[in-house]
């Protein structure tokens, strides 16, 4: 009898501890606002593609870490020649694609050559522009020769658009992505969800989750009940306006981080009267960044004075250059010959930061005599009229690509900005790989843009993440748009 009891007690104890050891969940449902159009990161600009696949399914030679740093990925290490033109990558061995084929140097050559080919539809083809040749030295070594030294080459290779794909599966990745990452693609219910499962053949540190489902929730109003009911446990990109509803709920973590999204009031620099420096400076003085952030971004977001993320090491704080000053703005307009102000248009794309911010900016500019007509446009119209045809006066948009200050030196870019001094700095930057020197040059570039008041610099778009308090390892910041699940786990 006594033995019975002992056995029973032991069994119960074992059961209790046993079930506790297995209690940590290994599945996760993540809410994303936009559905990716397809699942090939090397063939489209949609951020939603990377938000599902980057670091999870696909890997590159290098990768971008949670704070924007360059980390080794499929390349275990690399050596750079003294002239900065030859990169020799040592690759991990024993790596397999999810369809069972082996990964080696020929896949790297294939991927890089494919991305820079004439018929390539890679949305970031510019990342590969400096590459001259890609040579397979042996199965575990690749030599990349550049036309000229490029300071950002290792960073560029960490973009989602530069991931390594296999020749066997490259053409079908849009529907059935095959990568080397810790998760493999399982299914895609169009319009509804994308499911990834743990890959058993992964070469690196195993992940904690067995299954991750990305569920598409386009409506911000639907995200809150989805969290509250437990249907979805994480929204890494949450609507700032809805934060108040979950902020004080102990069941959730609300994490405000930074992005690479410089939100700006773009100005058509060639179109009169905006070709006059005084007019652009007047606009800069007329803008009250705090009021804009409060009204358009629920008070979240860091003010910027030039085109650089405050999270970057190269950041220079130039927000004090044009403090909010209505009198100064009016005076500058008077100098420019617009004592009685003028009329202009403001084209606004769909995101709420633009639509809400636009109304506030219109009222701020009206205070100094600039009368704006607000024209709401769809993305397709915006790309067509504003971005391609440059048929606009002012517009609001967030430039979410990381480290993209060079857009101001691009010929024919929609800002219509042309400053040889700035172009010279960017050209020098491209040839510099020393970090300290790069940061100095980036600082000078920021100052020129701020001095010229090229556009109205508003604020850095915040990354608002909300997830179950028991969840660990999701990115706080968004140095690139991704949901890296490799370190994510449930705690209990």
């Amino acid at each position, binding site marked *: 009898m006594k033995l019975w009891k002992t056995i029973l007690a032991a069994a119960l104890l074992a059961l209790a501890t046993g079930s506790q050891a297995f209690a940590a969940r290994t599945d996760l449902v993540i809410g994303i606002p936009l*559905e990716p*159009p*397809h699942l090939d990161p090397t063939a*489209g*600009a*949609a951020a939603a593609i990377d938000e599902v696949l980057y670091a999870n399914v696909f890997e590159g030679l290098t990768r971008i870490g949670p704070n924007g740093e360059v980390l080794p990925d499929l390349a275990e290490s690399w050596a750079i020649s003294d002239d900065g033109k030859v990169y020799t990558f040592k690759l991990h061995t024993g790596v397999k694609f999810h369809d069972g084929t082996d990964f080696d140097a020929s896949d790297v050559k294939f991927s890089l050559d494919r991305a820079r080919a004439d*018929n*390539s*539809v890679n*949305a*970031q*083809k*510019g990342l590969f522009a400096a590459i001259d040749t890609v040579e397979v030295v042996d199965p575990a070594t690749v030599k990349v020769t550049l036309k000229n030294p490029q300071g950002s080459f290792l960073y560029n290779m960490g973009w989602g658009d530069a991931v390594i794909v296999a020749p066997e599966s490259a053409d079908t990745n*849009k*529907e059935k992505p095959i990568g080397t990452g810790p998760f493999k693609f399982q299914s895609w*219910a*169009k*319009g*509804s*969800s994308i499911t990834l499962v743990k890959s058993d053949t992964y070469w690196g540190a195993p992940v904690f989750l067995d299954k991750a489902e990305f*569920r*598409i*929730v*386009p*409506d911000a*109003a*639907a995200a809150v*009940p*989805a969290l*509250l*009911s437990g*249907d979805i446990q994480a929204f890494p990109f949450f609507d700032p306006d809805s934060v108040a509803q979950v902020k004080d709920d102990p069941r959730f973590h609300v994490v405000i981080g930074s992005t690479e999204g410089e939100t700006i009031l773009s100005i058509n620099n060639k179109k009169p009267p905006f070709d006059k420096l005084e007019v652009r400076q007047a606009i800069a003085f007329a803008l009250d960044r705090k009021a804009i952030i409060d009204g358009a971004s629920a008070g979240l977001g860091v003010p910027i004075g030039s085109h650089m993320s405050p999270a970057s090491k190269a950041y220079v704080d130039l927000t004090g250059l044009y403090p909010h000053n209505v009198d100064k703005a009016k005076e500058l307009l008077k100098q420019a010959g617009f004592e009685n102000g003028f009329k202009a248009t403001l084209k606004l794309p769909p995101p709420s930061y633009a639509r809400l911010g636009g109304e506030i900016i219109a009222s701020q500019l009206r205070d100094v005599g600039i009368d704006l007509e607000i024209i709401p446009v*769809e*993305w*397709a*119209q915006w*790309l*067509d*009229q504003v*971005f*391609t045809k440059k048929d606009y006066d002012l517009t609001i948009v967030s*430039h979410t*690509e990381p480290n993209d200050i060079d857009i101001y030196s691009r010929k024919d870019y929609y800002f219509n900005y042309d400053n040889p001094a700035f172009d010279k700095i960017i050209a020098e930057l491209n040839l510099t790989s020393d970090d300290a020197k790069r940061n100095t040059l980036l600082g000078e570039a920021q100052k020129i843009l701020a001095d010229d008041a090229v556009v109205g610099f508003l604020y850095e778009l915040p990354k608002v993440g909300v997830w179950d308090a028991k969840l660990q390892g999701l990115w706080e910041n968004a140095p690139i748009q991704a949901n890296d699940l490799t370190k994510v786990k449930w705690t209990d």
Partner: protein
Amino acid sequence: MTAYLLKRLAIAIATLILASMVVFAVLEILPGDPARLMLGLNASAEQVEQLRNQMGLNAPLVLRYLHWVGGLLSLDFGRSYTYSVPVIDLVRERMAVSLPLALIALALSTIIAIPVGLYSASRRGRAGDTIAMGAAQLGVAVPNFWFALMLIYLFAVWLRLVPAGGFPGWSAGVWPALKSLLLPAVALALPQAAILARVARSALIEVLNEDYIRTARAKGLPYRAVLWRHALRNAMIPVLTILGLQFAFLLAGTIIIENVFYLPGLGRLVFQAITQRDLIVVESIVMLLVVAVIAVNLVVDVSYAIVDPRLRGRQ
């Protein structure tokens, strides 16, 4: 009857041809380039041109129209620009959500509306009628996305009886799939039922004033029999018309409810395709909807003839 049907059919086909031209022309005029949308801000003009060629967007307009219509006739709807899968597959997946949802909502709306309409009409001016029509007025006035959110907070967040949204797919089993369609169906059905009940009531009241109703009552038929056999049947024509319109709306006009419940329905596909300038998807789905609306109208026309024998003889 045959002549009546043939005439209806001819009108239907002419409408289809006209609609195909209008749909194609309107979408061509719409500003925006699908290739630029796919490649984003960093792609060069040459690359965009490259993709346009690959997608066949640079062919002459008339040629593309004929190619498209030819495809439709042979039931080949083309491939989506953005998803790069056959449009018909996309539609089939979405129909698996939208069609059951529309049918459940329509059934719910009819089941609620007809008895309420009958009840109100037979108690015209009394307290019961006033309450029922007041409720119907409220049902028309309440925005359905708000009503949907209230349903979600009550049944999904608080009572946890159903999921807050999403659709697990029919492969997950009939009950889980139906469960996820229940709240959206109720949210869709209630405003529709409110409209339908008001229409049924006024149609019935009109009929109840007719001489033959008085005759029927005078010859001693019980009120209930008069109401069901004589009045309801004659009041069906406006009710059927509204039902036909509602079905067409429920099939594709439910984008707001689909968003609130994040359901992968047809409405959301069309909306997404429009913003992405996935023209081929928009064109094909709009044409399918035109076919659906015309088919529903045809069915309604035929049912008029069944309900009202006088229409059968007419040319």
